[in-house]
């Protein structure tokens, strides 16, 4: 079997908790693959196994054609890793960090220096190269971290929740950087809690829960399985929710009503037609709406559809971490 990443029945257990419980994954060369799941689903454990930081208890994993356990060094010289937290020497400057990692990749002094300069330039950090990383903003640190993981133009790049804790601008910067890699032929495996991020960046998405892949496919395939996009309508008068539901043409399966928030939410197939129908229908019936919006399903909704239940762990750590960063 060929593929930039081949994972077969990989298992990893901590005490009696199965972080990875027979996970299978196949990622084609030069593609971007998203691993989507809530906290505790096993995403980080998977990345750590694939980047040779963690030895699996069972199963087999190959990255860039090499076994992650038996040929760890060969794997390491072909991968880049962006962990959840910036792994940088905060006392040193950006350039010093990149040069150090280049030397540890055995590029040689001159090549390491040249490469550091290129990467600083490319990530818009050229004028901050001398500043200590401890004084960088969160977004700058993340970009430098990404630059450090690209020292050797890796064949396979692992991004573990690359935008968690970043503001929208930082997120957009990281997304732009990831997109730019695709043209270079790099295979990217990224983990995320955000369906939108997976949708924006990835060719294929694997949804993981409790250490296994519970669904995979393209974003469109998954969306069609998970009810696709949704329309949210907030009414001025919550008492009219029932009337509004009966009135809207797309109402049917999957409609949810939240009386407290005066909100009704329904799956849609044709986004624009649904929006137009909602606006027209409500106006004709004289029902006042405060807000009408189209949106992607949330991770919770995806899980609800795929598992028929709540996610095993709710993505609440995320808010805590964003709070930390602020």
């Amino acid at each position, binding site marked *: 079997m060929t593929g930039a990443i081949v994972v077969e029945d990989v298992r990893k257990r901590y005490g009696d908790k199965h972080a990875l419980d027979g996970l299978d994954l196949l990622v084609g060369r030069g593609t971007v693959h998203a691993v989507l799941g809530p906290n505790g689903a096993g995403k980080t454990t998977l990345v750590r196994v694939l980047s040779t*930081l963690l030895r699996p208890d069972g199963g087999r994993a190959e990255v860039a054609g090499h076994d992650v356990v038996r040929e760890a060094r060969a794997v390491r010289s072909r991968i880049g890793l962006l962990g959840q937290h910036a792994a940088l020497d905060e006392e040193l400057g950006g350039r010093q960090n990149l040069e150090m990692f280049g030397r540890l990749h055995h590029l040689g002094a001159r090549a390491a220096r040249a490469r550091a300069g290129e990467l600083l330039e*490319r990530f818009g950090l050229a004028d901050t190269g001398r500043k200590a990383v401890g004084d960088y903003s969160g977004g700058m640190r993340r970009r430098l971290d990404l630059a450090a993981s690209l020292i*050797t133009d890796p064949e396979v790049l692992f991004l573990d929740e690359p935008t968690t804790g970043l503001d929208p601008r930082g997120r957009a910067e990281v997304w732009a950087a990831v997109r730019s890699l695709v043209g270079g032929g790099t295979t990217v495996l990224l983990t995320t809690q955000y369906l939108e991020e997976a949708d924006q960046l990835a060719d294929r998405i694997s949804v993981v829960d409790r250490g296994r892949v519970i669904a995979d496919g393209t974003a469109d395939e998954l969306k069609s399985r998970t009810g696709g996009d949704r329309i949210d309508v907030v009414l001025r008068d919550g008492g009219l929710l029932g009337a509004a539901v009966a009135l809207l043409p797309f109402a049917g399966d999957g409609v949810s009503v939240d009386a407290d928030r005066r909100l009704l939410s329904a799956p849609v197939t044709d986004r624009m037609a649904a929006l137009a129908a909602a606006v027209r229908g409500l106006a004709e019936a004289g029902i006042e709406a405060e807000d009408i919006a189209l949106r992607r399903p949330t991770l919770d909704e995806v899980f609800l559809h795929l598992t028929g239940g709540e996610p095993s762990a709710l993505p609440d750590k995320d808010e805590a971490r964003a709070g930390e960063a602020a």
Partner: protein
Amino acid sequence: MSTTYDTAREGNRNPGRTGGTGQPPHAPGAGVRLLSDCWTMTRREFARWARQPVQAAVGLVFPVMLLLMFGYLVGGGREVEGDYVDYLVPGMLALTMTFGLEGTMLAVTQDLGKGVIDRFRSLPMADGAVLVGRSAADMLHSTVGLAVLTAVGYALGWRADCTPGAFLGAMGLLLLFRFAMLWIGIHLAMVAGKPELVQAVQILVWPVGFLSNVFASPSSMPSWLGTLVGWNPMSQTATAVRELFGGPGGEPGHTGAAVLWPLALLAVFLPLAVRRFARLSR
């Protein structure tokens, strides 16, 4: 600020890629790799000093401060044969080697906490280069520390009354002791894992440091305390060093203990530290 990502250019330039199997063309042999990686880690330490010159200087000046404090403020009346400074300086050299443990521990916990060790482990570095590099950098740091303290001692009137060979032997014993402290430091850092626990060690180092013959001769202490102090491996090193320097407080026959104690500590803590490091992948 404008951020541009030049995809086309990026696609043409692949310094690390061979496209097939096997090692990249620039992959050096294991020995060269280890040396090169250790040198890189040592350079990293230099760069940190250059970045934080005050912090680095404080680290060097702190033992000097202690030396001055005990030499002039506290130590005037110590019951030591001969000049107190000749007794104190070799003891302070030994104490400085012990305090090095804190620096090692702090550096390793910081790297663990920031994920820097994880990044190192994801690089094609030589086996053991992370730890060997750490110890190379710290040994260098301690050698500089020894030089500074020796120079200050000299300025205070301390003189080594010995051959150059004995002088170097004494320095060797001190650095051997530092090497043992270093691996204890790495091991404690791996066990503790968190910078908070470094503080506990930083406090505990003091009673351990003072329960020795660094500042006072055990003969001036109650007998049980003198015995305890005599057992302290640092006391053995200090006594052997004093003997080699030909100053007060030296007794013949301690060189063996000053060699064996650090070796025994190394025999325990070096494998433990290495095993802890290997277990990061579990």
